[in-house]
């Protein structure tokens, strides 16, 4: 029999002990903060050195002229009605594109995450292909869909090119995968049992979805919406090609002011305006998402997929396939067809030409750019995964304004003009200790800047959904915090990580904006090579551009398929 007595023990002595122990709790909190700080250190340093510093340098160069800060320019530029018009158009087309993309792609996310049908993986890779295509190439394919004698013209008698619809639909084409991959990544792991439980309790299919699935998905839907918005907000090529000269976005204006007119003060003000708009969007996103991310029951994605059953699901599958075929496959098909359509009939002449060096565009054969692109993309993906992964790990536990600020900082590059970053690199990274003037690293660094936010956005909702008690269970079993991360978080997040890596890779493969402004030794990437070929007259150049674009698509799709298969298998698949 135990002799231990219990008590309410509020007696003397506890008071002064409490003082000491408050310190202990504080120390624990301090330690947690330190760990977070350590995790954040590398991403912070990365973004400070390769984003904050270059952008500040170019903006500073613009606003600090003649030895004085020229803040008067802010008023001048903002007072210009043309600028306000551009800002307004930039914002609303981005909002409309985002809404349309969500509308069309969310069913796709469901179908690709939950329904099991032949060719699902291939389709998932294929819808990501547009994401890497240079807009110049895709834009011209889109004309085949929406322009004269195009699909809509011959079928409906409607020409949509140079209308705002062309811009919106093209944005769907480019960003379909953002939604499918970001939302689908989580959707595939949501426990269907919960929705089933709600339905057992009498909720209809739609009500169950709305009450159970939608709230659970909301953080990743918001993340996808944010990324689509930022991409369309900084849209350049699509606006130029499909919108025509009457439509102009902030991005186009910043490009013009920086690269053509060379009015750096105006460019600087526009960049600040862009920042302000992006920060406002980030604040809105944060406000939407905060407190809605919760621990979810995540399960093995292999278990959630099922064959489409019932007429409803089959109709949904059909509708999604139709949208994908029309909006994604058709334009891609046009490009592929053109790559074989040589002056002497269909054949492989353009592909053969890719192997020769006498085209004059490069000192290397165009096909060698495939190697360059893969190399840059691999390096950029590793950088983005490390930086983004650490940042996501630091951000898992929500707290504090500071951390939210950090979260927002990570997203800023997506909403920043490529020309700003490219020129910023140029004038900022040109002296020791960061003298990267002609280092090949500049390219993957710039690419990782765009890839890392993807990694964070894709991984964070999944990480936050991991039940904290699983981590505690591991800790109590003897796992140190690092082991907990490796043993619990990593396996749970490996699928998201693979998706994020795919994104980062695709982003890098297709990145053109910042890369083209970074002068570098002659190892052009695929998109740069395509652009150079397109910039020249003649069937051989154009044909090679199409062939190289097709190669780019194939490389992208193949890489994504490989990446997805690298994904760690679930337990039980011994």
């Amino acid at each position, binding site marked *: 029999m135990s002799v231990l007595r219990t008590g309410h023990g509020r007696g003397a002595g506890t008071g002064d002990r409490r003082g000491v122990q408050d310190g202990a709790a504080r120390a624990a909190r301090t330690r947690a903060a330190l760990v977070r700080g350590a995790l954040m250190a590398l991403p912070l340093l990365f973004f400070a050195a390769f984003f904050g510093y270059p952008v500040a340098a170019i903006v500073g160069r613009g606003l600090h002229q003649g030895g004085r800060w020229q803040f008067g320019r802010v008023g001048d530029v903002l007072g210009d009605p043309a600028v306000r018009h551009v800002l307004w158009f930039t914002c609303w087309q981005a909002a409309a594109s985002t809404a349309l993309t969500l509308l069309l792609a969310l069913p796709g996310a469901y179908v690709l995450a939950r329904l099991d049908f032949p060719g699902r993986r291939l389709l998932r890779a294929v819808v990501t292909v547009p994401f890497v295509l240079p807009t*110049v190439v895709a834009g*011209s394919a889109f*004309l*085949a869909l929406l*322009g*004269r004698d*195009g699909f809509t013209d011959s079928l409906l008698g409607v020409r949509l090119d140079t209308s705002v619809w062309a811009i919106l639909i093209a944005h769907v084409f480019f960003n379909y995968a953002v939604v499918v991959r970001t939302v689908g990544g989580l959707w595939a792991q949501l426990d269907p049992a919960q929705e089933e439980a709600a339905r057992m309790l009498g909720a209809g299919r739609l009500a169950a979805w709305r009450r159970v699935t939608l709230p659970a998905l909301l953080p990743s839907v918001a993340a996808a919406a944010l990324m689509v918005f930022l991409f369309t907000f900084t849209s350049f090529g699509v606006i*130029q*090609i499909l919108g*025509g*000269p009457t439509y102009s976005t902030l991005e186009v204006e910043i490009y*013009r002011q920086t*690269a*053509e*007119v*060379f009015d750096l003060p105006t460019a600087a003000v526009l960049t600040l305006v862009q920042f302000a708009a992006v920060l406002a969007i980030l604040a809105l996103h944060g406000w939407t998402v905060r407190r809605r991310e919760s621990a979810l029951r995540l399960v093995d994605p292999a278990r959630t997929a099922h064959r489409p059953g019932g007429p409803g699901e089959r109709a949904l599958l059909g509708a999604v396939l139709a949208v994908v075929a029309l909006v994604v496959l058709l334009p891609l098909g046009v490009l592929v067809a*053109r790559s074989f359509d040589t*002056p002497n009939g269909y054949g492989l002449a353009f592909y053969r030409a890719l192997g020769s060096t006498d085209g*004059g565009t*490069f*000192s290397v054969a165009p096909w060698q750019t495939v*190697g*360059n692109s893969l190399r840059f993309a*691999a*390096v950029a*993906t*590793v950088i983005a995964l490390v930086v983004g992964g650490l940042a996501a790990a630091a951000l898992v536990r929500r707290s504090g304004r500071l951390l939210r600020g950090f979260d927002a900082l990570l997203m800023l590059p997506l909403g920043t003009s490529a*020309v700003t970053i*490219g*020129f910023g690199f*140029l004038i900022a990274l*040109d002296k020791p200790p960061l003298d990267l*003037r*002609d*280092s*090949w690293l500049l390219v993957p660094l710039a690419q990782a800047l765009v890839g890392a936010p993807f990694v964070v956005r894709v991984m964070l909702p999944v990480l936050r959904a991991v039940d904290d008690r699983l981590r505690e269970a591991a800790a109590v079993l003897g796992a140190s915090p690092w082991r907990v991360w*490796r043993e619990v978080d*990593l*396996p749970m997040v490996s699928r998201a990580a693979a998706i994020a*890596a795919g994104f980062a890779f695709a982003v890098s493969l297709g990145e053109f904006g910042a890369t*083209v*402004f*970074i*002068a*570098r*030794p*002659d*190892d052009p990437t695929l998109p740069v090579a395509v652009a150079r070929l*397109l*910039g*020249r*007259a*003649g*069937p051989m150049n*154009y044909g090679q551009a199409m062939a190289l674009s097709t190669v780019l698509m194939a490389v992208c799709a193949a890489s994504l398929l490989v990446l997805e298969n*690298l994904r*760690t298998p*679930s337990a039980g*698949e*011994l």
Partner: protein
Amino acid sequence: MRTTARRAVSALALATAATAVLAACGSSGSSGTDDGKATGSGGGSKTVTLVSHDSFAASKSVLAQFTKETGYTVKVLRGGDAGAAVNQAILTKDHPRGDVFFGVDNTLLSRALDNGLFEPYTAKDLAHVPQDVQLDAGKHRVTPIDSGDVCVNYDRGYFTAHHLAPPQTFADLVKPAYKNLLVTENVSTSSPGLAFLLGSAATYGDGGWQDYWKQLKSNGVEVVDSWEQAYNDRFSGSSAGKQAKGDRPLVVSYASSPPAEVVGVTPEPAQSPVGVATGTCFRQIEFAGLLHGAKNTAGGKALIDFMLSRTFQQDMPLQMYVDPVRDDAVEPPVFVKYGAKVDHPATLSPDTIAAKRDDWVGAWNGIVLK
């Protein structure tokens, strides 16, 4: 039971290894980084660095010959289009990235010179270059390397089929016969677009071009943002435009476009499908200059001399689709056979361009895009 973790780790290891291998391939392949350090090491360097825009190209064999003749290897840094490249050079003039800059044309020349981008150097073979392209002849801060004409191109097939004579001059373009046939580029975003505007301004004068453009507009001129779109998508005469179902038989392009359209076509056609309206041309001249603060001045000078040599000059046309400035350079047969001879292109002095450019662009926007 540890398969999961092991596979994750091995996947990561694989990725890292692949990266390392690829990175290794890259540095051995491009040999850029090592040479870069050599440049930094000072005057005795055997590398000369050329900074240029994305369109710069030269045959490997030609560059090899330069190395053979002078002992210098050329490293080329390229970034952006011509405008961006010049602006980048100005931004980095305190820490120049190379020794020679190539690719500033007459529309941007004043900006480059006013910013003190270049050191004077009188190239060896300057005597072979006509005076009218030596726009900085007094100071020799830049050396003309090539010229090219921006002209309206026409779709031969279209005009033959419609029994219509193709236009030849600026004035022709506003005639009702050519209504809704021309596509040109936005002067704010496209270099040929700007050149076409400058050509009209040179022809009609500071006070007259606006009226000309109003007529062009009422005659149905279409404006797109880039040359790529105009030529590859909208123009009916190019092979790309044919695939894209372009329906504009007139496009603002280059005098060198017709030969480009027959490269790679077998059997060789008698005529290029594209013709040039030689009375609508504006001449662009591209210059090279020794960058102020260059590390390898001697190498830079040698490179400029080489770019004016017959070897380089005769290599240029098929590499960059431009005309050599050297009077004794022999053009490749395809240029001779299919190219157009432009005798009296419109020109404007760089100072006039610098002074008027922004106003004209603004006025043009008001007339054409509104």
